[in-house]
């Protein structure tokens, strides 16, 4: 038996303490950068105009199924080439804030270039949800969640029209 993994995403106004979004969707197959804060609108219906930024994507990983421990998390952009005027910024583990299109200075990691997952950002795990405190490098909680994995596409006026290349965002973890 093994752990079952799924990507999740929160959207909407921050609520609660610790903060989280008003809407949570799981089993995500994509994390599209858009000019709208939701997980349902097609990216083609809410494109980002060159010079503007996407709404931040507040994503996380959820683990269920059969396992003893989840540990040693790494998160990175591992494949796909971003064109001129496109910058992916991200951060692990900051508190949820209502998504906006402002260039978020808390997103300190420049994820524009694909990197080897081994040099990705360290990710911690814990119970209850990505918003919960007490995350650690390993967890025996089931279900278990990662910290918030937040990213945003920032563009300048030099960005070309049309779709961006697909970026592969990888979460690597060990289970036993």
């Amino acid at each position: 038996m093994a752990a079952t993994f799924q990507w999740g995403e929160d959207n909407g106004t921050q609520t609660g303490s610790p903060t989280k979004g008003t809407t949570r969707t799981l089993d995500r197959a994509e994390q599209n950068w858009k000019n709208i804060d939701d997980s349902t609108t097609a990216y083609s219906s809410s494109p980002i105009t060159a010079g503007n930024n996407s709404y931040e994507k507040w994503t996380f990983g959820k683990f269920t199924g059969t396992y003893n421990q989840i540990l040693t998390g790494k998160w990175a952009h591992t494949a796909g080439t971003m064109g001129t005027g496109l910058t992916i910024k991200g951060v692990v583990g900051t508190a949820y804030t209502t998504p906006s299109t402002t260039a978020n200075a808390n997103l300190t990691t420049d994820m524009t270039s694909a990197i080897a997952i081994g040099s990705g950002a360290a990710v911690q795990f814990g119970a209850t949800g990505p918003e919960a405190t007490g995350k650690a490098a390993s967890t025996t909680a089931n279900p278990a969640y990662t910290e918030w994995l937040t990213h945003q596409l920032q563009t300048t006026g030099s960005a070309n029209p049309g779709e961006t290349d697909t970026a592969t965002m990888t979460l690597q973890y060990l289970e036993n």
Partner: protein
Amino acid sequence: MKTKPIFCAHCQDTRDQEVKVVLEKKEIITTCPECKREIKFPYPITISEFEGLIAQHKTANEGHDVITPEKLAAQKVEEQAANDFLESL
């Protein structure tokens, strides 16, 4: 053109990057002279706050093992060699 030494996550080096302020967006945009990748910082901020964000940016991005086209090509050659080996068994 104003420049400032800023670490580039793609080049993995500090270079004199062009610094522009885009008032209507309330953003500072810096451009690496080598790879042309851009970074946004919020504006208005003080010089010391800008320096702090630049330092934070370096700390967060130094040491990334960037997958360059050369590395990707070398990886594909290795994968092909491994496949060829298995095929020949």
